[in-house]
Each structure stands twice: as structure tokens, then as C-alpha cells.
């Protein structure tokens, strides 16, 4: 055999070690998160019997369901509105092409902090300060929105075309004039798209904030779940699925129109106006559901300060146990991501119209991933805890399903965007379907997949820190318990541990992502 064929020895050794480490991490993660084939099979049969118990759905308190539904939408809507209002200045101040110095550092730091803290954790803290109800939900969503939207805004501003900015600068315009006339026109459509995306996202999150008492459908769902009223649970779930699907469709339609530049164009005017009309109508109605009691908010502020004071000093007496739980949490994220990857590859292939030529299969796979993506993972977690019991296994399943929604869509889109030329060339050698996928499709998409998988791994470890809120394993359970018994010093230790973990994972993942691209 020729010399050029044998890759040099050290390179092979390196590949071997990398893979050994990756496999070892995965094996350990599966073990710690208590995932194995046996529990999968029993879990499956338990889930089936849970679904059986849910039938027929009990709609006897439909008025109540309707009420909490409106409250949920109101929480999502107002959380988004306040989030947008906060994100605009912070986003502008944290864009490195128009801001520098202290304002830049502070706003960037704030945005990063809000992004690192899981939304449900904010809700938990605000519930402690303001009591049960929708207000803490709205506040939590506003801050979480800043974490996402502030970054989106800043990135949009950073990637603008500089020529018009320079042109205006040369006229001697004031900075605000430049922002208004050279920057805003460029980023406005993007901003609008992000805003609709956030509205969609926040209404979905608002459905689970109730799990910690922050108002909306989640409260009712959790109550019925705990009293084993599964027929009422299924009635609520049906409403949830309905709303999630509707909003998902509406937001997809709006963002598509905005991105294609056809927003409010002749053929879309009717549908765009109608959707905006519905949003305005709902927001007006939702006023009635939010007890916007300013005095209540002001009363809460001293309680927040008190809470902050009570946090110190952190208690480190049980640190070993917490460290183990952190490892469990990270393991859940890893296991859930791996499972999602395994599930998503066939789903993505079946959904991609250019390699699977059966319309029905395409549509079915696409809708499956849309649904999984739209359902909040805490909702899945709640259901899996009922089906398979407390513990990390339920959390892993929840993360796996939700992530499958993201990955299935991403895989499908990247397959549909591949270069078709090599595919035809392999076809012309007389290769079979499966060989074509392996030799013409996979080599093109695997590099993309790796980087997206890593991004999701990062996200999932963050998500697994709060699975414990519904008893689905990880450190989150300790957090909610210590909050419930007002042991805030313990809570601080846990919060700090979670934040440090998230930071470390974030660093590792961005380092790895740079390495593979």
C-alpha cells in the first residue's frame, strides 16, 4: 500500500484518544442519569398506561381552563413587551460598533448574565419576593427575554453595512441621528422577526412558569397532576397543544414574510394585519387578567432586597452532595442530547424532500419535529415524572424529545440545502439509496451537525439544571426545596454552583466549536 494512504501515527493516536474520551464520557453520563434499555422499555409501557388513564379528557371546568389560558397568553405577551423595551437600549449599548467603554461592558455583562440564568430560576426568585401569581412570571420572562433579544439585537447591529453609517457621519450628524437613519432602517426587519420569535417562545415558556407558582396554565396543570386527575390533565394538555400549534404557525408565517421582505405586501397584507389584530386584541383582553397593582410591585422591592440580604453567606456544608448532583445534571444534558441525535437522524432524513420522495412521510416527520420543538421540556418532564417516576430518567426523556424537535428540523434543512451535484454523481455510479446517503449526503452535513449538536448540548445542560423543579432529576430539586423552606443561604450555594457549571460548559463548548470548524 502506498505511503500517502497511511495517515501518520501521531494523528491516528490523537483521533483514537479523542474518541476514547468522548465514549467514556458518554458511557458514564448514561450510567449516572440511570438510562438503560430496561428502563426505556418499562418507561415506554408506563407511558402508554398513563396515556390510557388520560382518556376521555374531562372538559367539565372549561371556563377555568379558558381563564388560565388567557392568563398564560397575557404573561407571555407582557413579558415580551417589557423584554423588548429593556432589550432595545441594552442591545444598542452592547453592539461593539456603536458603543464602547463602561456602558458597553455593563450592558454586555447584564445580557450575558440574564442569558445564563434559566428562566424558571428567575420565576422562582420573583415568586419568593412577590408571592404567587402572574406578576413574577412577567418579570421573569422580561429578564429572560433580555438575555436572548439583547444578544440578537447587538449581533444584528454589529453585522450592518457600514457604508451608509459613514455617509451620515460625513454629514456631521449626531450619533442618535446616525442610529435612527442609518442603523435602524437596516436592522428593523430583523428586529421585528426576532420580536415575533420571542413572543412565540415566551407564550410557550409562560405555560410552564406556573410549575413554580408564577401564574398561567402551569399552576392548574401542576395541581391536577398532583391530585392524579389525569382526565383533567389531558383536557389542559389538549388546549396547550392547540395553542402551541396555532402560535407556532402564526409566528412562522410572520417571520417568513418579514425575512422574505413581503411583510405587509399585497398578497400578505390581509393575513399579517389579521395576526397583528389578534395580538392587539389579546393584549387588550389580557389587561383584565393581570392585577397590575403598582403598590404590590413596590411592596415587592424591599422584599427582594431582604431576599438578597438573606442569601449571604452561602452555606457550603453539603457541598459534596451538590457536586454529585451537578454531575448528575450535566450527565442528563449529555444523555438527552445523545438520545436526541439518535432519534433526529432518521427523522431529518425522512423529512428532507430531496432524499425522501414520499410527501406523506415528509409531512409527518416535519410535523413531529415541529410538535416536539414547540412543547416546553418542563411540560414533557412533568408528564414523564408521572409515567416513569421521580428521578433523572424522566428529565433525560424530556430533554431528548424536546431536542429532537430542534435537531430534526435542523438536520432536515441542512439535508435539503446540500450540494446536489455530488449526489447525482454517486447516483450515476449505480449506488443504492443507503450508499448515496452515506457517501454523498453525510460527508456534506456532518461538520454542520457537529457544531449544532454542541450548541444544543450546551443548551441542554442549562435546561437540565431546572428539571428538578418537577422532580425530574438533577440539582434543580435541591434549589426548589431550599427556596420552599426559606433556606436562602443554601439556595445561593446551589445557584452559584449552577452558574459556574453553565459558565464552564459554555467555555468548553465554544472552544470545541472553534476547533471543529
Amino acid at each position, binding site marked *: *500500500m502506498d505511503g*500517502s494512504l497511511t495517515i501518520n501515527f501521531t494523528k491516528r493516536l490523537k483521533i483514537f484518544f479523542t474518541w476514547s474520551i468522548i465514549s467514556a464520557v458518554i458511557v458514564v453520563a448514561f450510567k449516572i442519569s440511570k438510562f438503560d434499555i430496561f428502563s426505556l422499555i418499562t418507561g415506554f409501557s408506563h407511558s402508554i398506561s398513563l396515556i390510557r388513564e388520560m382518556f376521555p379528557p374531562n372538559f367539565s371546568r372549561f371556563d377555568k381552563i379558558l381563564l388560565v389560558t388567557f392568563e398564560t397568553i397575557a404573561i407571555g405577551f407582557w413579558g415580551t413587551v417589557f423584554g423588548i423595551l429593556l432589550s432595545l437600549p441594552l442591545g444598542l449599548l452592547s453592539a461593539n460598533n456603536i458603543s464602547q467603554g463602561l456602558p458597553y461592558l455593563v450592558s454586555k455583562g447584564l445580557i450575558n448574565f440574564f442569558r445564563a440564568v434559566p428562566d424558571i430560576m428567575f420565576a422562582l426568585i420573583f415568586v419568593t419576593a412577590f408571592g404567587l401569581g402572574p406578576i413574577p412570571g412577567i418579570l421573569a420572562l422580561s429578564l429572560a427575554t433580555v438575555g436572548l433579544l439583547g444578544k440578537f439585537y447587538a449581533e444584528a447591529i454589529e453585522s450592518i453595512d457600514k457604508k451608509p453609517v459613514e455617509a451620515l457621519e460625513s454629514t456631521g450628524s449626531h450619533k442618535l441621528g446616525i442610529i435612527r437613519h442609518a442603523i435602524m432602517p437596516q436592522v428593523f426587519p430583523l428586529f421585528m422577526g426576532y420580536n415575533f420569535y420571542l413572543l412565540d417562545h415566551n407564550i410557550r415558556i409562560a405555560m410552564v412558569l406556573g410549575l413554580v407558582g408564577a401564574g398561567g396554565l402551569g399552576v392548574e396543570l401542576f395541581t391536577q397532576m398532583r391530585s392524579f386527575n389525569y382526565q383533567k390533565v389531558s383536557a389542559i394538555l389538549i388546549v396547550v397543544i392547540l395553542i402551541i400549534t396555532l402560535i407556532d404557525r402564526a409566528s412562522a408565517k410572520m417571520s417568513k414574510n418579514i425575512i422574505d421582505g413581503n411583510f405587509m405586501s399585497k398578497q400578505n397584507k390581509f393575513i399579517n394585519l389579521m395576526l397583528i389584530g389578534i395580538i392587539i386584541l389579546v393584549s387588550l383582553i389580557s389587561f383584565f387578567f393581570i392585577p397590575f397593582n403598582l403598590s404590590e410591585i413596590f411592596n415587592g422591592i424591599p422584599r427582594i432586597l431582604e431576599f438578597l440580604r438573606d442569601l449571604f453567606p452561602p452555606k457550603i456544608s453539603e457541598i459534596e452532595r451538590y457536586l454529585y448532583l451537578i454531575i448528575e445534571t450535566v450527565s442528563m444534558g449529555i444523555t438527552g442530547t445523545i438520545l436526541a441525535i439518535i432519534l433526529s437522524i432518521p427523522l431529518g432524513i425522512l423529512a428532507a424532500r430531496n432524499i425522501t420522495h414520499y410527501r406523506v412521510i415528509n409531512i409527518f416527520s416535519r410535523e413531529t419535529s415541529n410538535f416536539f420543538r414547540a412543547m416546553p421540556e418542563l411540560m414533557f418532564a412533568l408528564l414523564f415524572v408521572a409515567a416513569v417516576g421521580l428521578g433523572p430518567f424522566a428529565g433525560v426523556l424530556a430533554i431528548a424529545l424536546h431536542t429532537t424537535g430542534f435537531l430534526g428540523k435542523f438536520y432536515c434543512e441542512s439535508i435539503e440545502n446540500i*450540494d446536489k451535484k455530488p449526489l447525482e*454523481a454517486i447516483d450515476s*455510479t*449505480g449506488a443504492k439509496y443507503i450508499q448515496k446517503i452515506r457517501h454523498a449526503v453525510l460527508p456534506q452535513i456532518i461538520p454542520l451537525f457537529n457544531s449544532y449538536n454542541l450548541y444544543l448540548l450546551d443548551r441542554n445542560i442549562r435546561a437540565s439544571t431546572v428539571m428538578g423543579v418537577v422532580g425530574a432529576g438533577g440539582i434543580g430539586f435541591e434549589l426548589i426545596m431550599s427556596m420552599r423552606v426559606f433556606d436562602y443561604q443554601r439556595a445561593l450555594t446551589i445557584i452559584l454552583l449552577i452558574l459556574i457549571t453553565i459558565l464552564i460548559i459554555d467555555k468548553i463548548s465554544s472552544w470545541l466549536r472553534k476547533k471543529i470548524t
Partner: protein
Amino acid sequence: MISLQNITKKFKGDTVLDNICLKIQQGESIAIIGPSGSGKTTLIRTINGFVIPDNGSISIDGKEIKYSDKKNLRQMRKRIGMIYQLFNLVERTSVLENVLAGSLGRYDNGVGLVLSTIGLFSKEEKEKAMELLRFVDIEHKASERVDRLSGGEKQRVAIARALMQNPDILLADEPIANLDPKTSQKIIDLLLKINEEKGITLLCVLHHIDTVKDNFNRVIALKKGKIIFDGKISLLNKTELLSLYEIEESEEFEWMAA
């Protein structure tokens, strides 16, 4: 022998191939010329089944191509190598892997199918791939990633991949349209060498008349989906050539210089 009988193809009502009849003996080397849109690409793609004719039939060595029978189509494609203008390589993988992909048609069941799908090829196949890379003179880049190669190098890899099939026929659709003149001549020389040494039938769509004149005996000229000339290039006189490309006599000078 390839034989096309009364091949007709319409796209959205436009007749792109109009009652084409053609016989090609094993081992021939043929250039196909004609203005843009005359149906050259469509014609050669009917031979390996990427275009299904509306009418007529094509047979290779007496066996008719059954376009609806996937297995039959695959077995036929195995015997026909295809070379493209834009090379159609899998950019992110190595030269060797691209060439090995040419052997996929041989592993269509059992263990061979499983192994080739995983990406494992036998030692013999690897040696054959290296031998072909040596033949097309790019052996030293075997483990290089394809996206690091120049256009001419990529086309050599694509030719090696096609040869990996052990084809009886080689179809080439404007194989030199994206290459500089010097590299182009080398690629044409390589294709003709393959035709001569290995006895592989060569059908080559070309745009540059000089290339055709210097290298090919038999020329097929298409215009509006019809064969308007088939024979030795020397028999195709200047006026006919000009009318083929619908060029006015006054523009002749410019055109000839191109």
C-alpha cells in the same frame, strides 16, 4: 454498442430532443457540439437514465434500458461513467474516498453493501483506487481534502472515480468548460488516452470547435434537438458550422479567434 431509436423529449411542451436516432460502436470517441440549449446535456443524460425520454428506446449491447425498473437502471449506470463540468465531487472528503465511491455499484447486497455503507472498502479496491490515481497522475494528493485541489486536479479525481466503476462507456458533459486552455488540453488528452488504451466508448460534449477538430474523428452536431450532422469533422464545412451556431459571416473573424 449503444443504439438510440427515435428518442423524443419534451420539457413543458418544448421539444428538446426531436426523434434522435444514433448508433455508437464500442470503443468509439465522439464529440457532441451544438449551441446552448440545443439538447446536448439532455441527450447524454438519457443514456444513463437521468432524463427519461417521452418516446423511443435506448439499448446498450442489445439490452433495452428500462427506466422504471430501479435495479435494471442501477446495473446499467454501473457500466457508464459520468464526468461533469463542475466535477461533482464530495468536497469535504478526501480524494481517495471520492474515488472509492466509484466502486459502490459493485456492492449492492449482503456484507459488501453493509461494509461499503459504513465506509469500509477492501484492500483490493483501495489498491485499485490508488492505481487509478496514479494513472490520472494525482496519486500524491490521495489523502488531501478535495476542496483544497485546483480545478484541473478535481477533474482528474472525478475521472478516476468514473474509471473506478470499470465502465464500458464514459459520458462527459463539458468536462473542460471550467478549466484554463492548458489544463483543458491535458484533460482531453487523458480522456482520449482512456478511450484508446482501455477501449472505453467516449461521448464528450464540447463547446470549443478547435478542441474538437484536433482530437475527435466523429462529431455529432445538434441544433434545436435534431442531429444536423454526424461524421468526420473535416466534412463539416465552414458555412455549415457558422449556421449551426447562427453566426453572421461578418462576426466570423471574432468567433474564429475565440
